[in-house]
């Protein structure tokens, strides 16, 4: 091996190390207002724990946007929400409930299409061996599992439902706890840790396809009316052109071969621009629950 080769090898190694470090640090990148990197916040409104999928999606977005993309994940909705509201990240895929709460700050970018429509439901589930519970009222005095206090399907809807039944949501259950993720609600109910739980219907149905053993240990006892699907939102100070560009990429995802493949992995059919009125039902429920 001559000197040139050594040099080359050294360079290659350094370059490799740098890129390896970059890859490793990717999901953990500190949140700084760099113009170069587009930061997208993710929440467990979809199955956000599939790292290989996220890697492919990021690469696809980078090709389409012609700029680096970084996904930002946090332990709960609240943190992601704070980041996007504070302008520390550019876009975020959040739930309809926080969007309604901060609709004057956040800007709607796109709404996913599930089974061809921009709607989804909240499911109330119980352990499979519970054969007698027929609805939420039957779970009085039981242990109940919510996904996230900022989730529509995993928190707001059961709260609202109890309210309309004339119950006090804080005392209706003997105990309740948050799992900070829809999938974990399914797990908690499946193992019997909770006697019931509220979960994103889209997540439950997707799990039923990809992890049938998980959903088989639960039983859906109630399905809510349809609500607007968790949307992509942009930070308050996002420029219109940039918002439009990102929206366009999302909207044309279904017409691109790889984009369609990625969408299929999420069991989604595409994105539409969507209207804030899509979330009127959630706004109505939130208003009702807040009155109490």
């Amino acid at each position, binding site marked *: 091996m001559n000197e040139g080769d050594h040099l080359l090898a050294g360079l290659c190694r350094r370059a490799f190390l740098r890129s390896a470090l970059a890859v490793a640090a990717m999901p953990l990148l500190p949140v700084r207002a760099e113009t170069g990197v587009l930061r997208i916040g993710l929440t467990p409104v979809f199955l956000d724990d599939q790292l290989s999928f996220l890697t492919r999606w990021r690469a696809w977005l980078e090709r389409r946007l012609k700029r680096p993309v970084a996904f930002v994940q946090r332990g709960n909705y609240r943190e992601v929400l704070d980041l996007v509201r504070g302008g520390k990240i550019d876009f975020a895929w959040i739930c309809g409930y926080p969007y309604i709460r901060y609709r004057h700050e956040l800007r709607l970018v796109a709404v996913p299409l599930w089974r061809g429509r921009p709607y989804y439901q909240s499911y109330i589930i119980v352990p499979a061996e519970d054969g007698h519970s027929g609805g939420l009222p039957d779970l009085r005095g039981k242990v109940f599992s919510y996904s996230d206090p900022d989730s529509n399907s995993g928190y707001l809807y059961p709260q609202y439902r109890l309210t309309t039944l004339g119950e006090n949501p804080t005392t209706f259950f003997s105990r309740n*706890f*948050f799992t900070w993720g829809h999938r*974990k609600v399914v797990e*908690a109910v499946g193992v*019997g*840790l909770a*006697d019931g739980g509220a979960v994103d219907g889209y997540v439950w149905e997707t799990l039923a396809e990809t992890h049938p053993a998980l959903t088989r240990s639960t039983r859906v006892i109630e399905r809510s009316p349809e609500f607007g699907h968790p949307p992509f939102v942009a930070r308050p100070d996002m420029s219109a052109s940039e918002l439009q560009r990102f929206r366009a990429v999302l909207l044309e995802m279904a017409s691109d071969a790889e984009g369609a493949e990625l969408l299929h992995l999420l069991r989604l059919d595409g994105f539409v621009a969507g209207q804030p009125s899509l979330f009127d039902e959630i706004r109505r429920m939130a208003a009702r629950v807040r009155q109490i």
Partner: protein
Amino acid sequence: MIALADLSLRWKIPLRVMGAVLGTALAVTAALVTREYDEMRQNLDAHGKSLARVLANTLVTPVLHDDIWRAYEILQSARDPTAIAPELQADVVLVTDADFNVFVSTRPREFPIGSSPASRGGVYGRLRAALVKTKATEQQVIEPADSVHYFVMSPLVADGVALGHVILGYSKISFVPRFIGLVGQAAFVTLLVLLLILPFSWFWARRTGEPLVALADAMRRVPGDLEVARLADLPKSGDEIGQLGNAFRRMVGELKHKQELEDQMLVTERLAAVGRMTAGIAHEINNPLGGMLTAIKTYQRHGGGDPLANQTLSLLERGLTQIRHTVAALLVETKLQDRPFEPADIDDLLILVEAEAHARSVTVVIESPLQRALPLPATLLRQILLNLLLNAIAAADEGGRVRLGLNSGDGMLRFSVCNDGKHIPDEQMAYLFEPFASGREKGYGLGLWVVYQIVQQLNGGLSVDSEPGCTTFSAEIPYVEN
């Protein structure tokens, strides 16, 4: 039990040695297994305590924040369903709050959140009692006898205040497979060792038993078959068994000697009885015989010349004379006054047998250092020696040898006559010295009888030793020096 007691030492000793070896192996195995078991238990205790401590420390925050799911995830992460050592896997983990209600558990269905494990009664009620008794900040290991679990309890302490407890329930049965594996392993090693040791032990034990068995075998043949018993292959060691063997050989020797003496005595007594009877008959015959012969002589001297009578009387005289000679031969008389036996008598004997020896081409050798006359009756001694020499020449093979050895000293004349002819069969030996016992066609069979009677009357002893190629008659006759 009786069957076992009756078992031969050939089997008993090896079996006992086997028993001892097996017993030792079992004891060692049991000790090893017990030690391993203790070690396993200690490991388990230590592991349980450290896991409980780690869990207790980790769970403080979720319990403080009432974060059930987080606590559950922590419990789950402490589980390893593919653990190499399943016995180190807690069967159930309970986290209880300060009131001993379930905060979270690894088995939510059995221990629902908020329920009291004590309400299930039994073991868990006693756990609570145990918790009440001890200081809130101490770890405890509780092993209820009636439970399939034993428990390691660690308090959840924040700032000196007990928030609750982490209770690890380990299955007592879960280390049974490991324990069985351990026993199996130990049994395998023991078996291997036994396979190596047992053949040696068996061989060694058999060797220990063999001399005793041989001794017992030999002893069974006493007193019937003394010769076989004497020749038995007995141990020749210096230990007790060897000593026993020596004592046994001595005993058999003495028994044999005694038996020989008895046999000899029997023969002597029989001969003495025959002698007495013969002497009595001979006297009874002799008395009228003398008168008859005298009457015949008187008739011949003074009787008429009737030729027929003379011829008849002559026939009678010859017959009576033959009877007299026979009777005289039977009636050995030693009371006669005789001259002493001199060396010249031996030379005479040689001349007397020469013709017979020459006829059969037998060489007669006489070895006699006798230099002076002995105070013994010469006629009788000559008769003994002549009879023995003639017998020997007759018994010797054609062209064979006969040897007469003779010496004296310490008031005893000893002599022996031997020939190299066929030996005397055993069955004939017992009757050898009886009258008319001769196996030969020639003669009356009185030669040895006469020899025996004379030796007896001279207070001597006569013996015969006959082996193929060498038959020896030996005699010892005492005399009194003037």
